[in-house]
Every structure is written in structure tokens, then in C-alpha cells.
């Protein structure tokens, strides 16, 4: 049955942000994630249920991305659709009417300006029910400390795309661990590997966002 929640899932899958959006062409003039999320709330669907619909969409997106069926542009459109829907859900999460599974603080390490991968991971994790604090690119270790103090129990995610900034990833881990020895940190980015993750004593490496979500879900359960 084509319920409003199914439609919402499809909007995430195909990156339909709102009614006016030109993408995708075959959903022209149809309601997008923005309108549908708002209507679902108005119709009384609990925010958690709406979030599940979004997650279902994200799962398909992640799978298609891994299988090279969609690429960065389509992935970013799905991220945008996700954001549009989340804007309506945010008040419910903030009031406590619905629960987030935890907080994820992510940033691209100092000296590194690559942010597409980080953005994709951030939106995937947000779409999986976590609050995401995105510190952007070229993030100094001290900026992570500030957010860790603001969000006790959060998980930190570091992204690096350059071999020359991987060293700053290590420095960030070191600086965090000086004052927060038990802080959970996961790392990723094209040149990063499982081996490097162990070398710098980070807790988890994943080559893709799905792995990071699975890790967070294990921690949260």
C-alpha cells in the first residue's frame, strides 16, 4: 500500500526534497520529503515511526552507493531530502517526545578541506536516528574537545582524505585521549585503513557510512 510513510521512504531514496524541486524528473510536481514529513506529523504519525521511514530510505541509498548504482550527486540529493524531513522532526526530538539513539560529533581533521565523504557519513548517521554535530572541515583537536564536553557520551568521527593530514588525525586522537581517555573515536576517509586506525589507537574504522552506523548501533544497544 502506498502510505505516506512509504512515499517518504521513496523521497529519501530518490532525493526528492520538496514539491518545487526539479529532481528527480519523474517525481515532478509531487510532494517531497519536506511536505510529506510535515503532513505525516500532522496526521499523527509518531516521530519515531517517521524516522524509521527515513532510515529505510537511507538504507537503500547506502546500498545503491556501495554497489555503484548511484554516485555522489544522487547521494547528496538524498542527504538534502533527509535534511528537509528532519527539520520537521527536530522539535519532537528536542522536546523529548521522540528519542535519539545518541550523539555523533564529526569533522574533517585540521589541514584537510575534503568534506563530501564526511557530509555523506554525517547525513547517513543523522538519518539513522542519531544527533549529529558537524564541525566542518579543517577542525582543530581543541574544537572536538569543546563538543565532547558539551555532549557527554558522544562518539567522535574523524575524516581525512590526505596522507599528510592523517598525522593530524593521530594528533586529534592523542589530544582527545589526554583529557578523555575513554572517548570512543571512529575514523574514515579514503587513505585511512584498519591498520592505521589501530596504530593511532582509534576505536573503529569503517570504509563506509554503513559500517559506522552498525558500530554506533552496537554501542547504543
Amino acid at each position, binding site marked *: 500500500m502506498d502510505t505516506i510513510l512509504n512515499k517518504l521512504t521513496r523521497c529519501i531514496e530518490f532525493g526528492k526534497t520538496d514539491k518545487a524541486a526539479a529532481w528527480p524528473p519523474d517525481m515532478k510536481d509531487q510532494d517531497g520529503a519536506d511536505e510529506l514529513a510535515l503532513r505525516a506529523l500532522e496526521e499523527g504519525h509518531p516521530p519515531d515511526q517517521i524516522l524509521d521511514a527515513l532510515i529505510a530510505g537511507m538504507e537503500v541509498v547506502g546500498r545503491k552507493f556501495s554497489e555503484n548504482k548511484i*554516485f555522489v*550527486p*544522487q547521494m547528496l*540529493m538524498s542527504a538534502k531530502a533527509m535534511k528537509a524531513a528532519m527539520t520537521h522532526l527536530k522539535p519532537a526530538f528536542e522536546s523529548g517526545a521522540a528519542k535519539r539513539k545518541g550523539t555523533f560529533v564529526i569533522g574533517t581533521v585540521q589541514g584537510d578541506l575534503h568534506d*563530501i565523504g564526511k557530509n555523506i557519513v554525517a547525513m547517513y548517521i543523522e538519518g539513522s536516528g542519531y544527533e549529529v554535530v558537524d564541525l566542518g572541515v579543517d577542525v582543530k583537536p581543541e574544537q572536538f574537545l569543546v563538543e565532547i564536553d558539551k555532549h557527554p557520551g558522544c562518539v567522535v568521527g574523524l575524516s581525512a582524505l590526505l596522507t*599528510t593530514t592523517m598525522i593530524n588525525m593521530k594528533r586529534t586522537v592523542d589530544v582527545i585521549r589526554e583529557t578523555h581517555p575513554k572517548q570512543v573515536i571512529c575514523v574514515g576517509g579514503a587513505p585511512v585503513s584498519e591498520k592505521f586506525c589501530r596504530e593511532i589507537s582509534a576505536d573503529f574504522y569503517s570504509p563506509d557510512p554503513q559500517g559506522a552506523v552498525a558500530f554506533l548501533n552496537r554501542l547504543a544497544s
Partner: protein
Amino acid sequence: MNGYERTLAFLNNRAVDRPPFHPIIMRWAARQAGTPYRDFCLEPEAKCDAMIRCAVDFDLDWVTVMSDPWAEASAFGVEVAYPENDLPVDTGGHLPDAASAARLSPYNPLENMRCRNRLAELEVYRKRIGDRYFTVGWVEGPVAEYVDLRGASEASMDLLMEPENAARAMDVITESALVFIRLQVERGAHCIGIGDAFCSQIGPDLYRQFAFGRQKQLVDGIHAAGALAKLHICGNTSAILPEMIATGADIIDVDHLVPSMSGFAGLLAPHQVFSGKADPVSVIQDGSPEDIRQTVMRDFRDAGGRCIVSAGCEITPDTTPGNMHAFRKAVDAPETQ
């Protein structure tokens, strides 16, 4: 044989003493020469000096004008900062939306410092090394330049949401690049590289829609100006390699993320070769000399012998001189002859 003769002979299927060796060096070259990266990017003499020293010390067959992607972007109005010893950073002046991208006007390379520097670099090369090394100029490809002007995420979404506006901007980018190409060839470039790395991220459909035709226009322009063309797209390009070859570029760069060149070698025209494809990190930076030798041999075999030896992309700054020598030596392996 010198680097220029070796490269030309190899491209023309004539006998060579060994395959050409064309590793992409930028930050590595600056570091080897002890040149602050700002000087490397902004002072033609400093860049050429570092490149020539590396070419001599490590027996490379080529020199290039590469350092960072911001030359054309600065000519289009992007503001760029040059930290003393770090990579340049774009700090503002980007196109705010696709509609303004559609109104982009062509630039005159002679009126921009970075573009004039590139021309000056080619003149330094002509004066100092003449035809001893294969000298390569550079332009950003249509998609890469659009990404530099709009920001990667915005540019990506424009391709889907505002295709006409993005296409209009890319036409202007291509038109300007064609002018810049002619000026570089006049200054003595034997070859012009087209850097369009972001194409590996957009999938084959958008590549065909936005990049292929314009890259082909650039290749034709390079040929018409009397130089050879090289097409550089790093990342996994397996899905678009047939089209990359069909642009007619003489040298097609292949990155290590392409599992093998073997399925594609048959598509090369007689004048075309691959250049690639060792992993700059796990093999050239972190591997042993034996790993490097094995990788070079395997790739060369997979390419049916039609492969200039290089890494899939830039040599990382932390690669040791020892590994670079090992990389060069791998080219002498009997299997590559």
C-alpha cells in the same frame, strides 16, 4: 634517449630503451627541493627549479606545471590564500548559485597572475631544458573547474537540479581553457594535461552528459594547437574508461582504484597509451622496493605494454627518496621492456 624522445617514441610505437617514467610530483617535489609550498605555487623559477632537480635526481622523463587546482579558479574570481608552507586554500569569491554560474564570463589568461605564471613556467622549461624532458602544461577539465567555482557539494547537486545552468558555465570554462591551451602550447608545452578528477565521483551518465563532449573538445583543441593530450581522472574510472579513451587523448591516466587495465587495453588506438597506476600510498609510499617492482610489472602486463609508468595520482610528500628510486628502477625490470 632523453625523456622527451623516449616518451614520443613510446607513444609512436617505436623502440624504446625502457618505458617512460612520469610520476606526478607536486608537494613531493617542493619538499625534496626544500621549497616552501607558497613559493612553489607562486614563483615560476622556484617551481621549475624543484621539478627539474627532481627530474634529474630521480631520472624522470617529464616535467609539469602542476601544483594546485586554483589557477583558473582565481582567474574566474575565486579568492585563494597561500599559506607559507601549506596547500593553497580557496577563501571566497565562489559562485553563489547555479544561476550566477550560468552568467560566468570567460577570462583572459594574460590578465591573471596564476595563469601568466603557468605560461612563464613553460618558458623557463623551454629555456632551461628545451626538448630534453617531456614538458606538460595543464588545464582543469569542465567538471573539476565547475567544482572549484561552486564547491563540490553544490556543484554535484547542480548537475541534477540545474543542468542547463551548469552546462552553460562549463561551456564558458571550456572556451576559456581552449584559449589557455593555445597560449601554453605557444610557450613550448609538448603536451597539455586535462585534470578532471571529480568525474570519478559523478557516475557514467552524468560523465557522458557533462564531461565527455567537452573533454573531447579540449583534446581536439590541444591537437589542433600542435601538442599531445593527457586526460587525468583519478579514482575508480572503470565505468567511464571507454569514453575517456574515446576522447582521443594520447595519454589516459588510470588510478589504482581501477582494478585492472587488462579489459581496456584493447580499446586503445595505436597512438594512445595508459599512464598509471600504482597506489601512491600503500605501494609507492608504504611498500617495499619489491612491492613496487611487482606492482609496476603487473600493471604494465595488464596494459599490454602500452603504459607509461606512474602512480595512480600524486606522489605523497612522505614518500622516501629510496622508494622513489625503487619506483624508477622498477621501470628497468625486463618484464617492462
